[in-house]
């Protein structure tokens, strides 16, 4: 047909752009997801002249703002994030004329890529002057992205590697610590130390820094006790964000369990490798494909290093190796399932089961489309491979109550405890 020759009618609204000058004048708000990771990322962004604040606001006001501005059927993460932004802007702590907000965009076939327009629409109603910045690697929103150069990117990657390691060490120590509060204390020290490393440029002395962290946590005295280990997988936001999952990690700790939370870097490598898979599966190639290949090789090498060091120099269990996760996926689902968290979810479930964490909470926003397939849909296949797998899917939603969620998790835990005694 003559589509190519049809004119384009513009139905889009105007929205404020983030200009270079705003870097100097504006505070950039980002929603919280992983407190330690984001503290490091905030620091890195600060080094590049972006004044960033990670939002910690919670409670019914946040959810109410979200409900007001987000469609009933849109995802819960969008609702939380937008609620946090609006609530923060209304708190009076930030001058709306000198504030911007930042969000990531994966550019995949899931509706999560549409957070930006949803945020813009919400802001338009009440704070039309606030620009929205996008952090993505899919070439979207070219006018409103961060100015990323190679060094900047490397620093972000290092921050995530360190954040992942800290999260894993903390989770393996905190449930067993002899002196209450010590793990939290060490964690805080490590974060400060790492920020120092970023500031003085020694952040890329990877081996030394990793060993420092390992050493710091190894020193914490722990009890020899067997606890129920519970893995957390699922949609990226509710999997990690305490606001999104009603403080799931804290709940599990209070239930005398050890939470096992897979690395954030896995998700990033998943996004990178999906680009390579597209070229392998379908022959889809463009000029960025070789760049993704280079990036992937670098990430694999770095991740392998952390894992090897952890294995060699500490008693801690290393996190999963990404190439291994891909193999786990292949046993359950095709790596072609790449929207949302796609094949990564069953891959992590399988990898957790394989390493003795057979109890898994699959956290998902209510009605999450990719999760129909890769979460609820695939758990049966995982159970076939690992008959002892004890997986509970939990829907998160502004109105699904904590009672309901906790009751289901408790059922899973009851089985888990029985299995532990066997």
């Amino acid at each position, binding site marked *: 047909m003559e589509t190519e020759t049809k004119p384009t009618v513009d139905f889009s609204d105007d929205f404020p752009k983030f200009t270079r000058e705003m870097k100097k004048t504006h505070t950039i708000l980002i929603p919280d997801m992983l407190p330690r990771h984001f503290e490091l990322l905030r620091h890195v962004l600060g080094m590049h002249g972006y004044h960033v604040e990670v939002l910690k606001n919670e409670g019914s006001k946040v959810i109410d703002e979200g409900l007001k501005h987000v469609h009933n059927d849109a995802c819960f993460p969008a609702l939380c994030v937008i609620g946090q932004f609006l609530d923060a802007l209304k708190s009076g702590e930030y001058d709306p004329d000198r504030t911007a907000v930042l969000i990531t965009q994966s550019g995949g076939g899931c509706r999560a*890529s549409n957070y930006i327009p949803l945020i813009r629409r919400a802001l338009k109603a009440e704070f039309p002057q606030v620009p929205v910045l996008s952090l993505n690697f899919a070439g979207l929103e070219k006018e409103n992205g961060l100015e990323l150069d190679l060094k900047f990117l490397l620093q972000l990657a290092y921050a995530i590697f360190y954040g992942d390691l800290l999260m894993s060490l903390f989770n393996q120590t905190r449930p067993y610590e002899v002196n209450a509060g010590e793990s939290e204390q060490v964690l805080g020290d490590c974060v400060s130390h790492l920020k120092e490393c970023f500031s003085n440029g020694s952040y890329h002395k990877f081996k030394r820094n990793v060993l420092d962290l390992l050493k710091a946590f190894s020193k914490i005295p722990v009890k020899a006790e067997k606890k129920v280990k519970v893995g957390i997988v699922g949609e990226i936001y509710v999997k990690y964000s305490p606001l999104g999952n009603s403080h799931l990690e804290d709940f599990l700790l209070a239930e005398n369990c050890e939470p096992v939370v897979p690395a954030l870097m896995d998700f990033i490598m998943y996004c990178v490798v999906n680009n390579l898979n597209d070229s392998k599966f379908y022959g889809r190639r463009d000029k960025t494909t070789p760049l993704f290949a280079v990036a992937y090789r670098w990430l694999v090498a770095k991740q392998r290093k952390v894992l090897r060091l952890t294995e060699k120099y500490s008693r801690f269990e290393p996190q999963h190796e990404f190439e291994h996760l891909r193999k786990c996926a292949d046993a359950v689902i095709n790596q*072609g399932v790449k929207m949302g968290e796609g094949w990564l979810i069953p891959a992590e479930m399988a990898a957790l089961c394989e390493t003795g964490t057979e109890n898994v909470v699959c956290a998902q926003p209510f009605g999450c489309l990719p999760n*129909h*397939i890769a979460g609820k849909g695939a758990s049966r296949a995982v159970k076939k491979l690992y008959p002892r797998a004890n997986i509970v899917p939990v829907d998160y939603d502004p109105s*699904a*109550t904590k009672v309901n969620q906790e009751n289901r998790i408790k059922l899973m835990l009851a089985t888990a405890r029985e299995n532990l005694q066997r």
Partner: protein
Amino acid sequence: MAKLLGIDVGSTTVKASVIDEEGKILYSSYMRHFSRVRECVLGELEKVRSFSGSFKICVTGSAGLGLSQRGKLNFVQEVQAAFGAIKKFYPDVDAAVELGGEDAKIIFVTGGAEQRMNGSCAGGTGAFIDQMATLLDVSVEEMDRLALQAERVYPIASRCGVFAKSDIQPLLNQGASKADIAASIFQAVVDQTVSGLAQGRRIKGKVLFLGGPLYFFKGLRRAFQRTLSLDDEHAVFPENAPCFMSLGAAMYAENSKEESLEAVCARISALVGGGEIAVSKPLFGSREEYEEFLARHRENDLPQADLESYEGDAYLGIDSGSTTTKLMLITPDCRVLYSHYQSNNGQPLDIVAGQIGRIYSLAGERVVIRGACVTGYGEDMMRAALGIDFGVVETMAHFKAALYFNPDVDFIIDIGGQDIKCFKVKNRAIDSIMLNEACSSGCGSFIQTFAKAMGMEIEEFSRLGLFAKHPVELGSRCTVFMNSSVKQAQKEGASVEDISAGLSSSIVKNAIYKVIRARTPEELGTHIVVQGGTFLNDAVLRAFELETGKNVVRPAIAGLMGAFGAALYAKENAASALPMSGILTRKELESFSYESRSIVCKGCTAHCNVNILTFPGGRRYISGNKCERGAGLKPAGDLLDAYKFKYELLLSLPDPEKQGARGVVGLPLQLVMYDQLPLWTAFFETCGFSVVLSEKSSRELYFKGQHTVASDTACYPAKLMHGHIESLLDKGVDFIFYPCESYNLDEHSSVNHYNCPVVAYYPELLKANNERLTKENFLMPYLDLNEEKATIKTLHKALMKYKLPQSLIKKALRAGFAAMEQFHGQIVEKGRQILAEAERQGKQVVILTGRPYHADPEINHGINKLLDSLGVAVLSEDAAFEYGNKVKVNVLNQWTYHARMYRAAELATRRKNVHVVQLVSFGCGIDAVTTDEVRHILESKGKLYTQIKIDEINNLGVVKIRLRSMLAAIEEQMKEHGN
């Protein structure tokens, strides 16, 4: 020896059991707690104190968690508790089904122990049964008795109460017997448990049935036994079923520490409400504030006239709603002669006939009814039965009534028992209409159901909320969720007053933020008229004023506005059109009677359950039919219906003459296949295969595959796919072909060209959840059809077994693409013809904007036929979008099918007689993005936006109102603009 005490605190009841160390049951009880959890538990403890000695205590149940934490008592998850008790008391049982107030559980004991619980959005529980009994206006015991007398079972959605309601309401209105409906409700609960919970695993062997509902309701027991084919020996209904969990908890109490009951009682008595619940401001700060509020609203009233002395003309308005019937008789100067408001109790026709008779007897010969008009669900029936002159769609009736009270009105909101309607008004014409969707109801009847559950009348319950000190925040989604929120609040110790006020606020918030989708209260307008029975409730009205920050007009006849509007309509139209009203005369009314019978229509494959009412003089009223054929009429023809054209074209594609030598391939006609069937049919036929299609979609087909559905919140088209797969397996095809496609074809109208995640990867879910599928009989290659080379390679590999040369695959693929292009060409050409023909005939055109698979009659429920019967030409988005320009939109335009919708909408903005009705599948997360954008495109050019949510629900009543409202509004707009 300490005795073991188990306490089970559920959503509606408290159960307690005492056993001794040997496991002998000493005591057990079961009682409703009416949200007074703490008091009720204390009461139980008091009773148990008659046993001497110390106790070991363990708590279980959904509402027991908070109590155990704060009362420092041991807790065991209730399924776990049941599991323990089963193993002890019924060691030979294979599985157990437990239905509670708001939970449903299945425990598999033998053959791999497994425990399952319903998701957060699943009905089929005790609360669901309560809700349904309220709807039928019988007690649950009565409902059970009725169910035993049933003769037939209707299909009813049981996933959640809101859905079931929309299935039951039309049955009631059509006069189906309550006995049959009661049995259908129980059957729905069984289906939900068996399919939703067991998910493919068979419930067999000896089965134990637990929980209150299964103990008390024989009808439910019978339905379970019949569905699972269990004889009396294999279906065990224990005497202690209601308190079974507490028995289990008592067994787990073994590990609790021993203590005296006094200590425990003292601890629990000392508990005060927890700090975790969110509260909001009180509705009224003081009595004075309330008095002032009452005085202000008293101003909006209609003058009365005395029917027993009045002489002259009068106009009658009837609002025959889904749950209530309203009548109003007015004088030409709008004084009220007579009004009436009554619950239907399933027999609206009798009520109206009776009321008209009453008017006749009061009015004598002095009053002449010059015209009568009816609105609402029962419109057609009333007109046929009673000779009412006019019918008006209820939105117009409400609008007319509101206009009377405030000529400057710019916003009207009507909250009734079952639905919420909102209109924006511009230039004295309806500018946009918003109705609640199936899943954001939370309407008036919810408060009523809840009041009943608390053992109170609605008036009393609402009044309690007026002066509540700390109204609870309960969220604003659907009623099922609100139930859980209430449960949580109760757990935290909120008072009945606070909950009552909280419910009023949540209904208001639901309406403002979810139905109207207002971002700020200012968007609603400045002159707001509120109406509907629910607003007669002062707590709701106050909550609305507080939330919007505006004083609004609530007419004293808020509950009768539909009837008043209808009467006004009769007045406006009677003068010019009628010499006299055609309404039954007093004499005719005295001899009025009717006969009702139901049959299954055999007009087409839909097999609608049709109900026929026959009136004196042979007039008939037929309902339940989806098309004219059922009403004994001929369809208007498919000339102007792109949906029908497309569907029939697709079905004609596989050529039965072509017997392929290589084997038989099955193609499931659902989801992406609605677009790509031509491609794959031609491909496989060229390769030398015979092509067989899956059975046509139907409710039965859905049930066939329901046990393999993994996620019951997925969209209906996806869930239907399971049935299609089963049907192909049953047909014995050599293999089923169903590719995974992240990317759809690039149609150059969007930034990217993805499929939605469900369309893209559904084969993965099928493979993982249907045990009949294997690598051999289910081929699901990952394809990107934009890349020919890779596609050929992948197909070659997938079909390795058949040793097809690559060159043949290439040839076949090209033949496939040619066939698909031809198919799309035919559809686009049909679109052109329809546009031209409608223009010539001066007809309105509606683009039913959805996805290709919405062409499936089981998915669109015949909405295209409905439009046809309303005299409107129907286009599909794929027949229209080629005539639309490309668009730049706010959202990321990255899905092929969705990009078509934007362009179709663009076309509508440029043509006066072309409109958009967007079809949205329930649970479609992507349409959460597209609906706002399609609306934006249309409204930016002054076009009406209408959205219809579809699911397995079969009820077209609401859809009809929506479409008629739209058409009426278009007509009004045209009048206003003078063309």
